[in-house]
């Protein structure tokens, strides 16, 4: 964990408001776990003030590059979307604890479920699982057809299904509908996406070994400010920090 001005080597819009950015820098050497994130400052000005947490989507150690996929929506990400290759961004990372690869044994089956901008970290995860010999099924949920991305890229690793809320692409409905449709079986579940999706998965598969990546508004991103806590079951005061204890937790470890 440190800060570095990383160089933008590639920047591209891959779906409506969805951008893929590739960054080069020494920091890549420290990036290992899928599900870890970086905290990015998009301007040297005091406004927008805070860093933005974005997940690592692809780690390419040989090239010394990492890829991030983000939705340009608010002040910070809109500014980021304007940056051109050759420019720098200030990156703090890598942060947090990612998805445990060791949870799935060689030969086992892993189900990866992503929702919206929760999809990106699953890509590095799929890559590392497949490399280990875990067989991977991927279910991706999006709002609508325009914002679907990376279906083909995931298909290289395993069966990939897409659901859209409005039915404009793939299964109509939520990721859970797509899972039901196929009666997918698996040993380990990995998921990243909005809280309602994670809750639905937790309820649907109460007995499975499941790992969920959480989102929370952050201040420091490193565990110092107590902005991003979530509760631990059956305690009034116990807590975990999404930024430094998470963002990935074992299902049941924290209250969603």
């Amino acid at each position, binding site marked *: *964990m*440190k*800060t570095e001005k990383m160089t933008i080597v590639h920047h591209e819009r891959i779906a409506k408001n969805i951008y893929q950015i590739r960054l080069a820098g020494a920091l890549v050497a420290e990036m290992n776990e899928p599900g870890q994130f970086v905290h990015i*400052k998009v301007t040297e000005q*005091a*406004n*927008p*003030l*805070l*860093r933005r947490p974005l997940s690592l989507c692809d780690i390419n150690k040989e090239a010394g590059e990492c890829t991030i996929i983000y939705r340009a929506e608010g*002040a910070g990400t809109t500014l980021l979307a304007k940056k051109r290759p050759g420019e720098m961004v200030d990156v*703090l990372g890598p942060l947090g604890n990612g998805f445990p690869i060791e949870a799935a044994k060689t030969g086992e089956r892993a189900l990866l479920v992503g929702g919206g901008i929760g999809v990106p970290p699953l890509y590095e995860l799929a890559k590392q699982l497949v490399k280990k010999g875990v067989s991977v099924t991927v279910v991706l949920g999006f709002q609508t057809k325009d914002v679907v991305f990376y279906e083909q890229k995931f298909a290289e690793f395993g069966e990939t299904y897409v659901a859209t809320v409005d039915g404009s692409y793939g299964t109509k409905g939520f990721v859970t509908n797509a899972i039901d449709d196929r009666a997918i079986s698996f040993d380990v579940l990995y998921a990243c996406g909005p809280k309602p999706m994670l809750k639905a998965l937790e309820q649907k598969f109460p007995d499975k070994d499941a790992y969920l990546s959480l989102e*929370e*508004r*952050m*201040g*420091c*991103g*490193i*565990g*110092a*400010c*107590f*902005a*991003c*806590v*979530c*509760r631990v079951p059956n305690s*009034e*005061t116990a*807590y975990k920090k999404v930024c*430094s204890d998470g963002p990935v937790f074992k299902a049941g470890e924290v209250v969603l």
Partner: protein
Amino acid sequence: MNRLAVQLPGLSLKNPVMPASGCFGFGREYAKLYDLNVLGAIMIKATTLEPRFGNPTPRVAETPSGMLNAIGLQNPGLEKVMEEELPWLAQYDVPIIANVAGSTMEDYVEVAKHISKVPNVHALELNISCPNVKKGGIAFGTVPEVAAELTKLVKEVSEVPVYVKLSPNVTNIVEMAKAIEAAGADGLTMINTLLGMRIDVKTAEPILANRTGGLSGPAIKPIAIRMIYEVSQAVSIPIIGMGGIQSAEDVIEFFYAGASAVAVGTANFIDPFVCPNIIAELPALLDELGFDHISECTGRSWKKGGPTVYCGA
């Protein structure tokens, strides 16, 4: 001569820059990034008698050049702070300023009595101004008589000097400061956050689960400067200034206003190295401005008859 060394009640500081309470936890995270020994002091997260979980999330929201927080004084409680956090911090040669909070006067007194006995705690900072805790918090920091009484009670039990942290959410900050000085405070720290709010345009819901929160960061700097300017002329106890500091220049501006040391809060989130960076940059800035020692800067904006200040233009 150490050009940055500053002497304050209970605090012999190698430099006047310290992280502000609540923005640095108990130091463990930043210790992974740099050697905490470079810091002038550390203001630890508010400590209450019992552990507190704090407010529901979201607890932070961004604002123009600032942020709102409604952490709600989450902390592991006096016992754990004394048993785990302070002993861990004792490995560093850095004085600790313990930020003390509570819901009743008795809470404050109890925390102060015990935490002031810990050897590396060199001063207390009474957080009478945190706007997030509904019970008590607001009143302590906004009614001079109440703040004065609290100060007196804590002074009676504390083994180290007591600094009181002023809330900016008051009509008359000078009146507050004077009452607290008269009650025996050894110093003031200012300012805490301003009460603010943001509402999500899509949902019409406040962004913070707690609805309102404390505004910090560069946006509040001019308010902090004004209040320190006013208070420093009205009291004779020293002021540790804070509110939006991001750079060595900001530190000098706070000194000119009347501060004798400074704390850096929100800026730690943006640049985790901001404190060591500022400390490293200060000597060159003093050279540029023509000062031998940083304490020459204290109150310079209102002190008459000092030597003419070098003007670069």
